[in-house]
């Protein structure tokens, strides 16, 4: 069985939607719409995120993101960035849904302007409310296993714990917790925020995560298109490694070949014939 068959037989299912890419693609801060489009193609992603903002009344040109991706068969995952309460997030979610592009929503409720860390209480309230309103809710959350369980109970379609604060590129600050969350959850776990490079993405996948959401490390890379492809490979590699089952860690060395038959095997340990046992 080749790589393509392996991946095809292992879809990521969120709220009944089968995805063949485990890469959720953030669209912010790209140097140009053209680079964004090429990077999106290179990523293989089927889910793209974006934000809801006021239009610029000074301009009459269509400067929205959608015109650049309209022809692509992707799922739209708007976020609620800018919200600092559940009420604000719910309002943004409803506005996003009214655009007629589906009912997926990434709940993102910042509780602090410096770290942009998610407010756990408000995130839980918003997740519950939006799930009740029929949204497919993917909350961005802190890496707390108990909170993640509560979010799942509140109706989250997937759980999105952060590796580290948004845009920092610090990678996975608490792999132990992320591993626990991946292990306990009955819905997909997407590691969102703080991923710095494909290495972090592969590490997260090897911990048992079901997918990766990344934006800044691709958009702000020197070559976003190459980096998008690198992430795709890393995520696939990490997923296959997880399925393949890694070896346990040991304290001391263990040789790759059996000692027996070594050219330098000591004579004392030689054949029975030499010892006259035949």
């Amino acid at each position, binding site marked *: 069985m080749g790589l393509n068959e392996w991946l095809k037989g292992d879809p990521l299912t969120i709220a009944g939607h089968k995805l063949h890419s485990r890469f959720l693609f*953030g669209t912010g801060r790209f140097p140009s719409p053209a680079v*964004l489009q090429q990077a999106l193609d290179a990523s293989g992603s089927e889910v793209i995120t974006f934000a809801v903002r006021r239009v610029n009344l000074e301009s009459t040109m269509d400067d*929205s993101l*959608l015109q650049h991706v309209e022809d692509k068969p992707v799922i739209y995952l708007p976020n609620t960035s800018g919200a600092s309460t559940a009420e604000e997030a719910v309002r943004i979610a409803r506005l996003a849904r*009214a655009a007629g592009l589906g009912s997926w929503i990434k709940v993102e409720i910042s509780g602090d302007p410096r770290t942009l860390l998610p407010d756990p209480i408000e995130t839980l309230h918003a997740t519950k409310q939006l799930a009740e309103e029929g949204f497919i809710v993917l909350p961005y959350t802190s890496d707390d296993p108990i909170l993640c369980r509560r979010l799942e109970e509140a109706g989250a379609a997937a759980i999105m714990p952060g590796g580290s604060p948004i845009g920092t590129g610090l990678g996975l600050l608490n792999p132990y917790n992320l591993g626990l969350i991946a292990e306990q959850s009955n819905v997909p776990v997407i590691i969102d925020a703080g991923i710095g490079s494909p290495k972090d993405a592969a590490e997260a996948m090897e911990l048992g995560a079901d997918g990766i959401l990344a934006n800044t490390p691709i958009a702000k890379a020197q070559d976003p298109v190459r980096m998008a492809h690198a992430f795709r490979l890393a995520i696939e590699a990490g997923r296959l490694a997880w399925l393949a089952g890694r070896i346990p860690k040991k304290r001391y060395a263990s040789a790759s070949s059996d000692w027996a038959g070594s050219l330098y095997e000591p004579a004392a340990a030689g054949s029975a014939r030499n010892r006259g046992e035949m």
Partner: protein
Amino acid sequence: MNESRKGLQLSMAMSKKAGLDFQLYAITAESNHPGRSLVDVMEQTLIGGAGIVQLRNKTGTREEVLEQAKALRILTRKYNVPFLINDYADIVLEIDAEGVHLGQEDMPIAEARRLLGQERIIGISTHNLQQAKAAERDGADYIGVGPVFPTNTKPGRPAVTTSYVAEAARHISIPFVAIGGISPSNVNAVLAAGAKRICAVSSIVGSDDPAEVCRSFLRQINSAAFGYKSITVNGQQEQSSARTIDELVVELGQQNKKLVVELNGQIVQRALWAETVLHSGAIVELVHFVGGG
């Protein structure tokens, strides 16, 4: 929106005498702004859109009034706005002001007319319909109608209420200006009674931001007079003549964008834009999608 504003100015140009095509009348009251100069405060009213200025100084000497009049003459010329002086017809001539404003106890209109000639503006305060009709008969160019509400500018004078405003609107054909205790928070009642011109003293010059108070007055005057709505779009105050959401989106030049519209906190589906009526005070949000993670 610029087109609409132009139309509005054209329709105001039909008033009787040059200089009376104003909507907002500002009057000095130095005691209301201690620590700030008369010229600075009055310049703020002009920046805010006041269309006529009156110097009113009941306590100063003639010399002092003359000095202030000279300074305000320069200022009002700079903004191309007519300048009137309360009571001192002689100073009007001396500094070439556009006219005088008289009280019921000041010199008769006929005498002022003789002094000032036909071209200059003569206005007079009135407190009942009888005085208003007398002023009209005697050749006043406009009358003040008030005090509509109780005011500290003229303590002890009983308020005439908006019923006198309504009477003036019905029976007086020369321009009339409602005055007395009017502020942006109560001006709507005065406009509803039929006033088209508003004068305010303390609520403008006693404010920390006279220009913004003037803009607030003008938004409401336009709204009442011309069906202009004062609405908030994406957090900004806008004047709009749009009747529906659909018209607003076109008026703002946003019809080519993939928008979601929220009106007073409720989403309006695109199919309903054409039939969703826009009222004054509406809070509208126009949002779309931008890149994000």
